[in-house]
């Protein structure tokens, strides 16, 4: 009899142990942060197809598609406490429901937000994925595998392509061709994200397409109307667009 009880006790202890490993963040000390992306051109809300824009080189263009991947979102506070969520999000201007998402994070004060602009290299080589990473989303190169991290399509009279097409498919995750960008956005001075248990705070992020053309690299449509594979041009454009984000507002 004693033996059995001993066995059972050990058994329960073992079970408790495995349980605690998989414990999720308990609801009592967590709140929600809603992150909203507002895509713009020079601060004006982006209007797909109908909006007509001019880049810093005086080249006119319209935008028909604008999508990018956001992953590994984390919040950080003065004390360095970081909350990372591995999820993948595809922000797609044509689908309003993709322009915001919510995360559950520990209560506390945070002064900055970090995320990866793109899909980490591991998930570029891990086979068939689902959700935001589903190849159905038209963000996966089928002949030279890897995710398109950001996509901008439209038209421009300066384009020398058929139908004046403008087509930037920016990707590359290996070695020299890596276009992955770690983005850190500090909240405006004096502003904190104050996550309180059970409550929702909001961060509004602006993504400005006007940044794609300049600084540090001049991208003129007359010279480059298409980018469809990893390489130098993709890297140049990614260097530019890595600066497209800014915090518009933080609401607690």
């Amino acid at each position, binding site marked *: 009899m004693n033996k059995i009880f001993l066995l059972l006790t050990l058994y329960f202890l073992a079970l408790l142990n495995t349980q605690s490993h*998989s414990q999720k963040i308990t609801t009592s000390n967590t709140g929600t942060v809603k992150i909203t992306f507002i895509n713009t051109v020079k601060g004006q809300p982006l209007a797909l197809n109908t909006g007509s824009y001019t880049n810093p080189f005086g080249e006119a263009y319209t935008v028909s598609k604008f999508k990018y991947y956001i992953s590994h979102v984390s919040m950080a506070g003065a004390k360095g406490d970081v909350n990372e969520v591995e999820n993948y999000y595809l922000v797609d201007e044509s689908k309003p429901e993709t322009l915001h998402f919510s995360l559950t994070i520990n209560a506390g004060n945070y002064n900055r937000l970090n995320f990866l602009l793109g899909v980490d290299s591991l998930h570029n080589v891990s*086979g068939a994925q*689902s959700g935001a990473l589903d190849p159905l989303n038209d963000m996966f190169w089928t002949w*030279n595998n890897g995710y398109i991290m950001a996509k901008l399509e439209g038209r421009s009279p300066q384009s020398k392509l058929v139908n004046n097409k403008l087509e930037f498919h920016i990707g590359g995750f290996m070695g020299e061709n890596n276009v992955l960008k770690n983005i850190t956005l500090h909240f405006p001075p004096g502003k904190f994200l104050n996550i309180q248990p059970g409550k929702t705070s909001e961060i509004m992020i602006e993504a400005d397409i006007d940044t794609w053309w300049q600084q540090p690299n001049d991208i003129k449509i007359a010279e480059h109307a298409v980018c469809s*594979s990893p390489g130098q041009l993709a890297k140049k454009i990614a260097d530019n667009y890595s600066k497209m984000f800014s915090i518009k507002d933080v609401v607690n």
Partner: protein
Amino acid sequence: MKCLQIIKDILSKGSKPLSKRSSCKGTSVALGVRSRIIILLSLCITLCALLIGASNNSPVKFADGNLPDYIEFKIPAGWPKPPTNIFAKNKLSEQGFQLGKKLFYDPRLSKDGSISCANCHQQFAAFATYEHDFSHGHNDQHTSRNAPALFNLAWMTKYHWDGGINHIEVQPLSPITSPTEMAETLENVLIKLKSDTAYPKLFKAAFGTEEINSQRMLKALAQFTGSIVSSNSKYDKVLRGEASFTYAEENGYKFFKANCAGCHIEPLFTDNSFRNNGLEINTFLKDYGRMNITGNPKDSLKFKVPSLRNVALSFPYMHDGRYYSLGAAIEHYRKGIVTTQSTLDPLLANTFNITNAQKYELIYFLNTLTDTSITRNPRFAK
């Protein structure tokens, strides 16, 4: 399921002593009521824990409790372990394999419903395109490369002649969406599969629910193509002591080991690396192979070293199918190597001295690599 039997036993009033049954914890003592209750409780907790655990990390959720018949991927004796386990996140099962096979032979994966994977990958040709340099795809357009034979894919980490595909699961996206192959969209393929009467049940048998999505379809196809293993040719039998080479085959084998095995390494007859074997560039196609993918000039004109298993069936040869016979392919190594290319593989820097006799012995040997256990196996047939 023995545990369930024990719970039943414990619950049933006039239960037989547990000692006669095999128990899941190996206790073999007759038990009192109190300890029975404790055991029952602990079993319940275990079950719950297992269920929670399963829903967290298991790739398959089977609501109805039915599991597919998992099968083990067998590595032939003496073979190297595959560099990655392609089935690590795609547990191989009989149902998954059968679903993959049905998809492989289903022409509805193409735009006009006339071209299946098997149109270009024919079983009797070791899943290469028989007798065609370029395979015919949608609207009779041609692919720009020769369709490779499909076997031992589990040992590869990169697919296609240029290695542009980095995982077996995503490979089918290329032929399905290529305008010269199946010319279809992934959306449409899924719509067609969903509206079919048979597929939802097959997806359920393989993955637990009737849901049809791209991930499941691709994983099923990988279960089929990844399961094709060629390890039963005459050559293999000779190595296992079940057969013996003729005099000519034996000589061919010796020549092969001395001159060809640097790249076509046994037992796979490839090292799956990318190399330039000195073919003159096809001026019409201007295909630079691996460089198209990496952008690195050092990769110019490098192509994946093809396995020479079943090579007698997979003609025509080379990435563009330029040679129609093994003799012609060997002639390339005898006098066709373009030595002026800067990326030519050092192993081929000096042209071979191949006598006519050696050439024929080599062909005899290469013919021993034909494996009817895949080309005539009903398991892989439609």
